[in-house]
């Protein structure tokens, strides 16, 4: 660009990590499939196919799965057959068998999503050739693309996540590199859903194209169960089968519903803004138990079509939620009826994407706002056809600040890495020294006779402080979503857990805390170990609860205590056998140290008290020194 041109051109808005040319082609392709030309799309409402597959070879071989929208309210919210006790927003937990990753890893809370969409997805999986078609596409080494308009987009999102789960389990995600493109899709999952998708790094391949005013994405923010008729009225109006499109024609149901929608959206946006702006008012907690707030949150990458030249790209879910309200904020003179009409008709204005994708500019709007000098954003409020209020800008920059703050917290935590490694190293030395003396460090620590036992205890406490801080921050969601999936931390956590948890167990049983509060595993296990164990299980994609090797000693202690209390061996046999076979596996894989088998180890001593008959047949026999 020539710099000496006399009238200084307005600075171009900074470009976002923009779409590659191939992706642009693909998006245009998806738009063409979702909005087939030839005016009214296939007028066969009752027998509309559950999905269609299109194969293309340009820009590279790909199979596009197109999911059609539904215009029946029953497909948007589950029927209120249950009546009482049904969640008013029609959400349900996702099936952990289909979506094992969709959960908060440390706490184990599963994500929730729209039950009707989940049901539709389930139906496709079980009752249609979807699975086989997808497998065929993968086998033919085609890139798999999922796309859809309106509720079809939500189904496409679920299918894409299911596919990503499948791929990562089989370690073949790179070949497939799936892609999901939706147009005007309603929100589908809750905040944990979004958290999990971001953690797994899937938001890059889930692209939601939205027109700023489109009503449909916001529909799930209203209580679906109690507004079924109104939603049906909206869908009837939107449906291409309806000839006469005029909200006035539908009496007053639509404008009234539109006001409800605006208010619900404002409630959610205000509620979330309170959290990320750091509201400490004590009434906030009380209000949330009296105000029904929709659980749904944006998830994935959002691309708002500000005009046919500009695309606002956002990955910050908080910011997207704010925009969902502030884009709809009315101008003082605007009539509700007109606003509703504009918002409804926006749902059918995605077709230009077919043409404009090649030259469209991606704008990092959030970056612009948050880097601006506070108070001076006024000249940048308008982008394309969209103008935002100053309040909106303030909320957006708060959302951006919060994301940065979480990043800063992570940097702070990363600084602890070295401290943790040093402490672990010194504990490792302790373990080795004990082995040189011929005792397991577990037993030595439990006795606390030597100075090095004491020093190890100090190390243990220091480490506990560092890890508890991390766990607390995770619980308060003060770290980035991806933290629990970062390999270096998962590895460090596993190292820490295997080395130090035996010391915590030793301390627990040394002070007989099991007699105060209960067994270590059920009552005494600190969160820092539960969390790190789940991190590893999630990263390795192994079943939850399967790597308890660091709790080996707790199980031994419990068995010992039970036998000391006079329980007969026959009653404990199953548990002993289970422990033995687990231990063998852990010893073979190296996740359990060989020090447990030292001849003076309390495990060995205890094992030798087991009945001869059992011992001779045990898998431990060959490990135990005679």
């Amino acid at each position: 660009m020539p710099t000496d041109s006399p009238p200084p051109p307005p600075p171009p808005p900074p470009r976002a990590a923009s779409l590659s040319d191939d992706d642009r082609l693909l998006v245009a392709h998806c738009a063409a499939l979702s909005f087939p030309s030839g005016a009214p799309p296939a007028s066969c409402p009752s027998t509309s196919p559950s999905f269609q597959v299109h194969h293309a070879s340009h820009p590279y071989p790909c199979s596009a799965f197109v999911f059609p929208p539904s215009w029946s309210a029953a497909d948007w919210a589950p029927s209120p057959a249950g009546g009482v006790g049904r969640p008013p927003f029609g959400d349900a937990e996702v099936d952990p068998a289909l979506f094992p990753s969709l959960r908060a890893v440390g706490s184990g809370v599963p994500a929730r999503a729209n039950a009707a969409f989940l049901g539709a997805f389930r139906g496709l999986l079980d009752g249609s050739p979807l699975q086989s078609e997808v497998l065929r596409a993968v086998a033919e080494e085609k890139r798999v693309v999922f796309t859809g308009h309106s509720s079809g987009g939500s189904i496409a999102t679920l299918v894409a996540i299911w596919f990503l789960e499948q791929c990562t389990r089989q370690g073949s995600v790179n070949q497939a590199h799936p892609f999901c493109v939706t147009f005007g899709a309603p929100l589908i999952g809750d905040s944990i859903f979004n958290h999990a998708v971001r953690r797994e790094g899937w938001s890059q391949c889930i692209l939601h194209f939205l027109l700023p005013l489109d009503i449909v994405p916001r529909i799930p923010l209203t209580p679906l169960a109690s507004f079924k008729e109104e939603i049906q009225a909206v869908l009837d109006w939107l449906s291409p089968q309806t000839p006469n499109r005029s909200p006035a024609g539908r009496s007053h149901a639509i404008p009234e519903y539109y006001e409800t929608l605006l208010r619900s959206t404002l409630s959610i946006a205000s509620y979330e803004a309170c959290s990320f702006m750091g509201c400490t008012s004590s009434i906030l907690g009380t209000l949330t138990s009296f105000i029904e707030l929709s659980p749904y949150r944006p998830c994935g990458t959002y691309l708002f079509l500000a005009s046919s030249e500009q695309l606002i790209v956002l990955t910050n879910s908080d910011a997207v939620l704010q925009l969902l309200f502030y884009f709809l904020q009315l101008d003082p003179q605007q009539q509700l009826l007109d606003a509703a009409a504009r918002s409804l008709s926006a749902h059918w204005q995605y077709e230009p994407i077919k043409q404009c994708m090649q030259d469209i500019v991606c704008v990092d709007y959030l970056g612009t706002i948050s880097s601006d000098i506070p108070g001076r954003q006024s000249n940048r409020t308008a982008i394309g056809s969209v103008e935002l209020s100053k309040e909106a800008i303030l909320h957006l920059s708060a959302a951006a600040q919060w994301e940065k703050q979480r990043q800063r917290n992570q940097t702070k935590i990363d600084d602890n890495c070295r401290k943790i490694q040093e402490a672990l190293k010194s504990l490792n030395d302790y373990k080795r020294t004990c082995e040189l003396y011929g005792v397991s460090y577990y037993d030595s620590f439990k006795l606390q006779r030597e100075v090095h036992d004491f020093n190890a205890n100090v190390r243990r406490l220091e480490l506990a402080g560092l890890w508890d801080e991390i766990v607390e921050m995770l619980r308060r969601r003060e770290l980035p979503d991806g933290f629990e999936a970062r390999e270096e931390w998962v590895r460090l956590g596993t190292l820490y857990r295997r080395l130090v948890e035996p010391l915590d167990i030793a301390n627990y049983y040394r002070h007989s805390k099991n007699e105060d509060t209960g067994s270590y595993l059920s009552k005494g296990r600190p969160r820092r170990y539960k969390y790190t164990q789940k991190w590893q299980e999630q990263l390795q994609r192994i079943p939850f609860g399967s790597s308890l090797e660091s709790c080996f000693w707790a199980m031994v202690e419990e068995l010992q205590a039970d036998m000391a209390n006079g329980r007969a061996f026959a009653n404990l046999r199953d548990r002993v056998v289970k422990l033995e076979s687990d231990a063998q596996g852990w010893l073979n894989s190296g996740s359990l140290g060989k020090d447990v088998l030292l001849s003076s180890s309390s495990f060995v001593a205890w094992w030798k008290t087991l009945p001869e008959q059992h011992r001779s047949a045990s898998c431990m026999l060959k490990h135990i020194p005679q």
Partner: protein
Amino acid sequence: MDDTGGEEETSMFETSHVLGALLASSPLLARAWDRCVAATAAAGGGAAATSGFVHGGGGGRDGGPVYVAFSGVQAALSAAGAAVAGGGVDVFAPVGLGGDAARRLFAPLVAGEQDAAAGEPVAVQALALQIFLKLCGSPDFQMLLNQISGKAVVFTGHSLGGAIAALAALHYLCISSSSSTCAPAPPVLCITFGSPLLGNEALSRAILRERWSGNFCHVVSQHDIVPRLFFCPLDAVPAHMIVGMQLQEWPARTRHAAVVTTITERMAGTDQDALRQLIRTHVGAVAMEQKLAALVTPGGSPYRPFGTYVLCSPDGAVCVDNPTAAVQMLYATFASRCLLGAEPPEAAHSCYGNLVLKIPQHLLLKRRLCVNELPATSNYDTGVSFALEASGIDAMATEASATRQWLKTSKRAGQRPSLNCAHLATRLGRITPCRAQVEWYKALFDGDMGYYDAFKQRQSPKKFSKANMCRIKLGQFWDGVLAMLDACQLPHDFHRRAKWVNAARFYQLLMEPLDIADYHRNNLHRTRGSYILHGRERRYELFDRWWNEKGCTAIGTTSSTSVASASRRSRSKYAGLTQDPCFWARVEEAREQTVSVRCERDSVELAMKLEELQEFERYSSELVASKEVSVDVLAPQSSYTLWVEEWKQLKLREDVRTILFQF
């Protein structure tokens, strides 16, 4: 640490108006108001006249909250006669909750006063209390309490009805907090519309202490005089205004035409501008007084706000939960645009129905900040401008800049506790090695004389001084924690968080024996008196209470603790730490007693002392038998072992044996 100031500035955002938007955009206020209207309509309507409240679902789905609305008509009628006569102010004076009935109904609020020791007792407005007590005695109300137990409840009321609703909510919170069920208490919310102030400073503090501030939501319109009236000295309050405005709301007022007409006439005769000026002066005075942190001026009003105030203007709503900031806002909103508006006070008092409909509609519009000329400032200041606009304060008015400052202060005050708590957790992590050091010290002497006696006798000076240093450091740390707690710099529920209760308990069990040893080594028990009564640090007494309040099974009394321990699995070996922190103090006392018994000649005295000793023997042997003591107690040279031996010797004596035999 230095950069926190700047960082705090940029990442700080004003949220009071955002919270207001959340509240106003929800159907909550409109539903509550509908109920209030129904309650006023129902009041005085024939036979049901006495109940004074209506209840029902909020129009939402099943399982939604129950709304209970109270009418203030009864209260207004009962005060009307006096008000007509020109007096009636005394019914609005505060009275203590010391009365028998009131003490029973509000037990936790009154009980907490013993801690405060100094200061005035909790007091509430006499009229509201009187009406509430009457209501509480009615079978209808008791039935209602049964019906709503376990459900989410919204108590609500307009004007005087709001004050009664607040008392009902307080009572409901009191009974739910003292009920023994472990289930989490169902949510309770009290929404008042334009209600007069209810209680004094002590009530406000008690509510903070019980962490109930978040359960009260006082909606106040910009120029409503009623919520601000009681900031004036009581003798200046025109009682007929409150009574009259309440009665005007009442559809059935024609039945009491005579009273209503007289009141209305008197109201019409009141100089409105003078009234506004009066309120303005006094609310301003209270606001100023708080700014200076001065003592309450004699003759001023005793009333203070509590809970969260929702200050409404047609442009929006602002939530303030800090009592000081609430006074500031009540003043600033009233003073701003006060003389321009000049709507009659009746209108400002009855506008809530209109407000709850208007605010949400207004929030949906793009607002233009009038103060675009304001120099570019921080995000925080922009947020405050929105908050001011939402509460109806003119950004250019003189009150605006003071309010700005107050919102900022209360924002900081709100953030500090959780920040402090996080810092404290890190400091606890750093101080824990000291604790480990003492544990180590204890283990050293477990087989010999126990760490109690070793510390008392300063065995192995080097180790002693190290342990002593740790004792002092840990004591300082925990005293610091308590100092922060006293200064309200920690979260209100700090003492109920498991992490802190457990950490404090563990510290206490390990360290208190050393403090006891120190006390007795320095012979303080001779100069100051027994350790248990006169020597315990305050921290230990508090930690005892925290521990006892923990969980639901171990409430207070010793009998329930022993029940709790009996239900537990019995110990197979000695506890890591002796479970009675004062065990060693008792041992010391027993040993003293044993010595004095040896040379006691008076047989009556002797018998008394022996009885005490036998009591101790029973207590200690039970503790040992149940293995509630740590091994150091039984160490061969420990004071306890020595005492057991001394006691055995003593029992060999002829006269002792005879006396013991008589017990």
